């Protein structure tokens, strides 16, 4: 019972947190973490709303979606981290914004 309500709510909260982090946090690593929270939140909503509890007939669709989603998220995270490393090597910066101000 609690799973179908509480966990989607947790998912929504995590999603909101992720959006906030992605937009408000400056540090690139923080943004990546936030993006992952974003994903986790969505996955929780997916599984939670599917109402899959022990004993119930398992619905394979959300599971398949989440598994795909996790793989995609890891790929994106890997790309983001690789970019961050290159960016840092090139500029010594770990945020997007201050450099912009300097540029203008």
């Amino acid at each position, binding site marked *: 019972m609690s799973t179908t309500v509480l966990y989607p709510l947790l998912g929504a909260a995590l999603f909101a947190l992720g959006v906030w982090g992605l937009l408000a946090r400056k540090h690139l690593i923080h943004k990546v973490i936030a993006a992952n929270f974003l994903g986790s939140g969505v996955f929780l909503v997916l599984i939670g709303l599917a109402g899959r509890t022990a004993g119930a007939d398992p619905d394979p669709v*959300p599971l398949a979606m989440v598994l795909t989603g996790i793989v995609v998220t890891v790929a994106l995270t890997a790309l983001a981290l690789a970019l961050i490393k290159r960016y840092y090597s090139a500029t010594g910066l770990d945020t997007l914004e201050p450099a912009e101000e300097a540029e203008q």
Partner: protein
Amino acid sequence: MNLVAHLPVIVIMMPLIGASIAFVAGPRRAPLVTVATAVLTIAPVAWLGARVLAEGPTRYEIGGWGGPLGIVLVADGLSAAFLGLVAIVGLGVTLYATGYYRVATGSRPGPGHGLYWTLWLFMWSSLNALLLTGDVFNVYVCLELVGLSAVALVTLAEGAEPLRAAMRYLFASILGAMTYLLGVALLYAATGVLDMRMLADSLGPSVAAETGLALMVAALLLKTALVPMHFWLPTAHAAAPSPVSAALSALVVKGSFFVTLRLFLDVMPAGYLGGADVLIGVLGAVAIVWGSIQALLQERIKLLVAYSTVAQVGYLFLLFPLARHGGEVLSAALLGVLVHALAHAFAKSSMFLAAGVTLKRFGHDRIADLPGTARRAPVIAATFALAGVTMMGLPPSGGFGAKWLIASAALASGEWWWAAVVLVGGLLASAYMFRLLAVFMAAPGGRPLPVGGVRTLRTEWVPLALAAASFLLVLAVPLVTRLAEASAVVAQAGGVVP
């Protein structure tokens, strides 16, 4: 084996196979592989289009599964039109890229040159999949794949700025994709299906389903860079290597728009998400004005062209408030938007490619420092001029056809203000395009233009050909009309001829 039954799969797999071969072939032979792939992809796309024209929208269930877990591909006129667009512009971009990334023996190979071919073909394949997929979850996967390869392509440019732009692009892309997936989650919880056709049948009044669809649409708007969610686009499109910029601005943005179109016209029943269509239209109008003004203020050609994309994308969204009226207004507006999407794709790709040549030849793309270009590089100037005419929507270009159709749909619906927006947009486009052309026409003023790089047939004439295609697109309007008629939505609306 029945080849016809697998056409959509072939359309998707062809570039993917090409990508793998290009990856294995190495930077020296990859260009050839890519050109071959681009040429070969045209055939199944054309075949698919012909079949759609002959037999109407078709569903393909891969592996014969169907059902919730199987992969369903849908080919209708709309997807065929966009697939054809991707194929033609894709071929142009590929040919151009072979000139752009010349494999100069002895000289330093361009950064990321080897990866370009693989990533580009991979993005092409993902785009084709996005245009063909028939269920909302696979849309998510395709969006992510396109985004992933697009970001990687942007970073092929050297220096810190492309990296910064790519990261901004990536974060926006993730935000969009995740929001979209959240929407899918809610929608699935509410309806239990993912297949677009089944969704169309099972959508009822439900808060969860409406919220889900709203989230999906919002995410797609972000991906299509509708103001105010455009912040990521100009830097990314301007910073990428020119063949990449062209593909991003011309094709990738259209992909997410295509899905929006699908959701609004094929999936949602009329009147669903009440008010959202008007809101989107208003944002589109704001985009036209705001993007054009920004374009007018830019100092560099590529940024100008990128902001022009922000503006031109706005026109696409004028469809939604007009679509409410259904009937002939919808048909005219849909055709107009379709023509606009095509015309803009041709014009925008040609402009980005020409900007790339400008950079190669003159070493920079600062507008103020390019007087006399019309004389030194008449083909480049002609490209910008022809493409510019389409941007402005002046007759007889494709852009004119689009604006005419949209404006007449607006006037027929009684909502004349959308027509006014179209006209104001055209004027603003003239302002920013002629600002550029005027500099090209100016006397060089004694300042010798540095001339570097090598002029090749491919790097100068391919953009010109694309620009000419955008200019002459009116000639293809009958074909586009037939394709629009063969799309699922217009079948409901009853013919496309206004």
